[in-house]
């Protein structure tokens, strides 16, 4: 069985000449929970973008569930993205109700109507928003908006979940709640990769920590802490 994620000697250079990733290799097994840590602008987001094919490597190979993401046709990119759920720091919700935000994702990926009726309340209940189904994102707190974004991903039940600074805009209570939700998804079988520069989030849990600096992986520690040498921003 292929690893959930396999990155082999990958370099990413942007058109302006900036090298975002420099010859990195990383393997993440199925069911793992991995923190990707490092200061802002040192390659964490670029690495995640490679996994949902928002970027392609300049050199090297990126495999997700055995699929070489750089060589996928447009229809296969859509299939890959159904297997990869992404949570962003800025939530990226639509100006629709909580129910519609979750239902939209299910409908857009071809879920039958009955399945949508079943999964939307399940997903909203799992993040504690079942009583806010008719509320718009603007009526929700930042923490609730992030929970809604997670509910949207959970409803799709992807085997791989990526979170790019998911607690960056949240207060400590909401941060704890969001991290609990990601841990729960991981316990239920999803592989989870969280990019963060917040030591408190990393140190509160005992998971694998991959540290990045200047586009390179500088340490990879199972059940580790946030490396002090990295700094926070």
């Amino acid at each position: 069985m292929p690893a959930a994620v396999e990155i082999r000697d990958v370099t990413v250079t942007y058109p302006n000449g900036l090298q975002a990733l420099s010859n990195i290799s990383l393997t993440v097994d199925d069911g793992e929970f991995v923190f990707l840590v490092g200061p802002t602008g040192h390659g964490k987001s670029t690495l995640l973008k490679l996994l949902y094919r928002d970027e392609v490597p300049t050199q090297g190979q990126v495999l997700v569930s055995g699929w070489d993401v750089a060589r996928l046709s447009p229809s296969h990119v859509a299939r890959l993205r159904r297997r990869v759920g992404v949570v962003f720091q800025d939530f990226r919700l639509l100006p629709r109700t909580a129910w519609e935000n979750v239902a939209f994702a299910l409908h857009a990926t071809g879920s039958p109507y009955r399945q949508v009726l079943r999964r939307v309340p399940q997903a909203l209940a799992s993040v504690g928003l079942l009583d806010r189904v008719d509320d718009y994102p603007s009526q929700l707190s930042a923490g609730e908006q992030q929970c809604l974004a997670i509910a949207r991903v959970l409803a799709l039940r992807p085997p791989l979940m990526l979170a790019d600074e998911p607690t960056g805009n949240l207060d400590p209570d909401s941060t704890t709640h969001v991290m609990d939700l990601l841990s729960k998804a991981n316990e239920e079988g999803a592989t989870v990769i969280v990019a963060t520069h917040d030591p408190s989030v990393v140190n509160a849990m005992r998971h694998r920590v991959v540290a990045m600096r200047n586009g390179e992986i500088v340490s990879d520690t199972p059940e580790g802490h946030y490396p002090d040498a990295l700094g926070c921003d």
Partner: protein
Amino acid sequence: MLWAAIDFVCREAALHLRRERLIAIATISTVAVLLLVLGTVVLFLLDVRVWTDEMSRALEVSAYFERDFPREKVEQIAEEISRWPAVRETEFVAKEEGWEWLKSQLASSTQLKDLENPLPDRVRVHVTSPSNVPDVAKQLEEVEGVKDVVPSAADAGRRGSFSRRVVQARRAVAYAGIAVGILVALAGIFIVHNTIRLALHSRWREIYIMQLIGATRFVIAAPFLIEGMIQAALGAALACCILVPAHMYLRSLTARSAPFVFLAPDSNMLPFALILLLAGALLGLTGSAISIRRYMGRRPDWHG
């Protein structure tokens, strides 16, 4: 899966048509104005064509036979001429009949009463197209027993002859129609594309989210294509609602006060309206397709 996708596409299209009324009104009215212009041009060209057709129907070549040429042979020849490919129909006019008609047409017909009939038998030849007049006239001049042909082959082929003018007018109308049609269609695609691009700009978040969660290109593009098509077809329907009654009224007006002006009959209005609706829907579809293509590969700034 496919049914779910179609269901989603239709729901999204309906939702946006309902929610974004201002943008929908902008698109519909833009297309309506554009198709009003296109429809006016098409109706004008149609009317000119009908007029030139009427003119060509009136075009005829008359073959006058020798006075002593046997009538049975003239009738037989008229029958043969009617089978020529360039001839629509022939009409034998006996000299007595021609004389009676002439007397009835002249105001001082009483003065002609005592005159001997000077007219020969003749055959009126109606051609299938004005461009055939010179050839038919030439062929008639070579027919046994024919003394005179009006217009003669030389006259019909002369620059500035009526038949040549009709041919030139028809050709000019056809070329002008094609040129105006292409220009207006291009302008239409450009305008619809820009209008729909505005609509898309307000919805790039949905497009981006759909791409992110793995919606297929069909599912992403189809609601926009349907929307564009429906809005443009509504605009076309609006243009039809103005143009068709206006043309019917104009026709009834000219039938009463200017019977020499031929306008396209009312029976042409249904096909015209259907073609305009189809043109509107195609404009909407093409404009939307161009716009959505430009948005599909973009990664917009979420906060921008």
